[in-house]
């Protein structure tokens, strides 16, 4: 404590302590300790050094800790030494100026403090670093401190809080100080108070502190030693303690006879071969467990091998011994407080995780929506099934990639890429409509197959042009990072951007279909093409525009998806089945239906992933099975048209 006090004073005096040879003088006065420091003797010296308030002290301490302080034989002074190409170079401890270079090992003696001393020096240094004027160094010191919580650093940390100018860093310091208090506080009261503070802390560090306090070991004892802080009493064969494991603990710790497993029996039999028989049983008959046991038991009677421990013997041993999980922390008030705090943290974490899954589901739904909405336009409004839709998504993504190769600024390239991707896929869609689909209206299965052909060809073309490896589509800097709500809930900005984009497209499409001349004509052509034609609407033009629009949206979706996933020639194929599912589940011919379908599929997939987080493949499998079943109950989707309009 005293050292801390003197440090504070020293720091206060720092600007005024200007002197030429003071450090060397000071060092010389503690010469013996510095040359041969021990953990005990070094304390007062460090205190003195810190109290001197010399600006050169931290530098010296670092060098000392690094084992680069040398005592020159010639003048018996301390120097900082560096080993370069020209041998040892000695620098002045005050100014850092080079004094002499290229001297031999015998000319200067290296001072090598032991580990304990270096730690002491380190904590003295932490005090300096925690108050360093450079914020980067302070952050670094805090990071180091957080990585390995050390009770010795509690003092310097607390002392540095008041002088901390940066608010965020100050909060961090307080938090870390609280962690230290919780684990190493001097009295139980201090610790319990600190632990209670942790009950609303969702950070990984905070949770780690609690679980460290609650660390347990398994204890086997016939009688519990006094003052044992028992967490729970275990029964072998129940809960987390298997009978075999429990018995093995008795074997290991208390020298009970070891169990004899099948492998042991086999080994014992092999070792006790006697001619063609073991224990009276011919070797050839030893191909069943029963015969092996009989042979082994015969060996036991002969006294050649230890007896088997059967279930009854194990039961007897278990009756004799108690199995406990025991807190490493011996004070029950502290573990109780920590348990309470942990329970509260767990509840909060659970809630936050649920919210986080919800957000994930929404962003996944946005992606499905973006991928599917173009399809909903072509499939739903025109009844044309376009299996190359996924490849249009891919084309959009590659457009974004190519633009980034030409325009280096990521923001600008994104602004260029979005409309360009729309234009490219709009063109591709129109070309496909004119060249292929136009001839296949009212032959939906043929359309499906022809567009499959296009999809195969486009995929391979992309592979030929861009290669098989994934191409990056880098998002601009302002889309990096995530919106952190708390330590559990965070959403990357890209996902938010995709959500916003999806929302924008929903509004745009609703606007186009419901409020514009084009939308009116599209609906007219959908419902009665002949009537529409007789009213001066050109159905061909409308079909081209609708198809182009649907394909164009796929292109934009491609840019968006490429930003958060990889751009490959197969990315379209990854989305096509899901997109169709989205449209079909939602209900064909309806923008809202697509939204509902995307929400349901995204939500369901995330829900399954939540139940079985390690396995996204299983989640997709279950999702598809669910969709197949769902269609049983609502063959026309969530938002279904009824009656005659459905047109059977």
């Amino acid at each position, binding site marked *: 404590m005293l050292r801390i006090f003197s440090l504070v004073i020293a720091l206060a005096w720092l600007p005024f302590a200007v002197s030429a040879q003071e450090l060397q003088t000071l060092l010389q006065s503690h010469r013996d300790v510095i040359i041969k420091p021990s953990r005990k003797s070094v304390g007062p010296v460090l205190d003195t050094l810190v109290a001197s308030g010399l600006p050169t002290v931290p530098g010296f301490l670092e060098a000392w800790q690094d084992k680069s302080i040398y005592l020159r034989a010639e003048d018996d002074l301390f120097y900082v030494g560096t080993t370069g190409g020209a041998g040892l170079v000695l620098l002045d401890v005050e100014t850092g100026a080079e004094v002499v270079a290229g001297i031999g090992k015998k000319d200067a003696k290296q001072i090598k403090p032991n580990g304990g001393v270096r730690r002491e020096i380190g904590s003295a240094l932490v005090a300096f670093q925690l108050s360093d004027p450079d914020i980067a160094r302070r952050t670094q010191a805090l990071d180091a401190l957080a990585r390995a919580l050390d009770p010795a650093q509690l003092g310097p940390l607390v002392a540095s809080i008041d002088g901390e100018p940066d608010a965020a860093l100050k909060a961090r310091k307080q938090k870390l100080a609280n962690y230290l208090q919780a684990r190493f506080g001097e009295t139980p009261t201090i610790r319990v108070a600190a632990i209670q503070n942790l009950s609303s802390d969702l950070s990984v560090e905070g949770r780690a502190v609690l679980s460290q306090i609650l660390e347990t070991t398994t204890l086997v004892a016939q009688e519990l030693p006094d003052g044992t802080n028992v967490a729970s009493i275990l029964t072998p064969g129940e809960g987390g303690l298997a009978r075999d494991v429990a018995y093995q603990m008795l074997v290991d710790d208390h020298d009970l006879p070891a169990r004899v497993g099948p492998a042991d029996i086999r080994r014992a039999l092999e070792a006790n071969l006697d001619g063609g028989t073991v224990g009276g049983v011919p070797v050839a008959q030893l191909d069943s467990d029963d015969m092996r046991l009989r042979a082994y038991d015969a060996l036991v009677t002969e006294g050649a091998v230890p007896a088997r421990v059967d279930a009854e013997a194990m039961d007897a041993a278990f009756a004799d011994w108690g199995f406990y999980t025991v807190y490493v922390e011996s004070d029950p008030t502290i573990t109780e407080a920590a348990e309470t705090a942990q329970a509260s943290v767990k509840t909060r974490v659970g809630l936050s995780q649920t919210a986080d899954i919800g957000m994930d589901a929404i962003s996944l739904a946005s992606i499905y929506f973006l991928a599917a909405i173009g399809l909903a336009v072509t499939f739903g409004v025109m009844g044309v099934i376009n299996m190359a839709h996924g490849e249009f998504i891919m084309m959009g993504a590659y457009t974004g990639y190519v633009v980034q190769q030409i325009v280096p600024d990521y923001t600008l390239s994104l602004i260029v890429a979005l409309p360009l991707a729309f234009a490219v896929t709009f063109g591709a869609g129109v070309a496909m409509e004119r060249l292929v689909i136009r001839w296949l209206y009212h032959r939906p299965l043929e359309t499906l197959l022809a567009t499959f052909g296009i999809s195969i060809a486009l995929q391979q073309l992309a592979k030929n042009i861009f290669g098989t490896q994934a191409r990056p589509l880098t998002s601009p800097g302002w889309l990096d990072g995530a919106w952190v709500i708390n330590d559990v809930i965070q959403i990357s900005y890209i996902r938010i951007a995709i959500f916003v984009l999806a929302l924008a497209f929903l509004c745009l499409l609703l606007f186009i279909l419901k409020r514009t001349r084009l939308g009116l004509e599209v609906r007219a052509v959908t419902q009665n093409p002949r009537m529409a034609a007789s009213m001066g609407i050109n159905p061909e033009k409308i079909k081209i525009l609708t198809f182009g629009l649907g394909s164009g949206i796929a292109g934009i979706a491609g840019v968006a998806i490429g930003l958060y996933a990889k751009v490959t020639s197969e990315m379209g194929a990854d989305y096509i089945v899901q997109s169709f599912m989205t449209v079909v589940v939602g209900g064909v011919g309806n923008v809202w239906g697509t939204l509902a379908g995307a929400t349901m599929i995204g939500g369901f997939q995330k829900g399954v992933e939540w139940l079985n987080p390690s396995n996204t493949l299983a989640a997709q499998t279950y999702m598809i099975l669910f969709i197949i079943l769902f269609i049983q109950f609502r063959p026309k989707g969530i938002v279904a048209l*009824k*009656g*005659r*309009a459905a047109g059977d």
Partner: protein
Amino acid sequence: MSTLLELSGVSVSFDGFKAINNLSFQIGEPELRAIIGPNGAGKTTFMDIVTGKTKPDEGRIVFGEKNISLIGMSESKIAREGVGRKFQKPTVFEQQTVRENLAMALKNPRGPFEVLFYRKTKLGADRIEALAEQIGLSDELTRVAGELSHGQKQWLEIGMLLAQEPRLLLVDEPAAGMTPAEREKTTSMLVEAAKTRAVVVVEHDMEFVRRLNCKVTVLHEGAVLAEGSLDHVTQNPEVIEVYLGR
């Protein structure tokens, strides 16, 4: 003449629009009946309900002596019970021959395995010949149905219906798009068929209905507006109002 089909209090609505509104209807066996009514009166929906294509929201439909309820039965089951239906557009299987079309319709077990192991019989062949004779397609038996004229397709379809040997025949606008001579022939086919079974003809064409010379039911807004001889219903002021008033 006993009652073969009876609908009582049947209603069905699509998105709030009542296509059939508390409809009650009866037909005996044998009987020929014409159903007329303006567009949207519910004529096609009436057929959809009887044949099981549309499920009514309420009401009951009973059929035959045992008063079997047709509600909830599948279309194919209803067809096997003895209800035949002819669509407005001639729907024959155009890629198959006239003989194949008729053979498929012949009254025989309909299960997949029974059909798979079905063997042609002399009886069946004779029946097909007789039907072809009846619908005037004896010379066309080996032709592909798609090559037939519009009228011939209509007759083939009627022939297929007769091959099913239904007890109730529902016929939707049989005379549409026919030449006068073809109409004549169609009329006599229907009148002939009605001698042994119940036949319901839905028709727009008053002239054709007059020729059928049978009891007429007038549908309007999904309910029966009038029933009786053609002369009787055409003098009904409400019918005149519905047909001419607008």
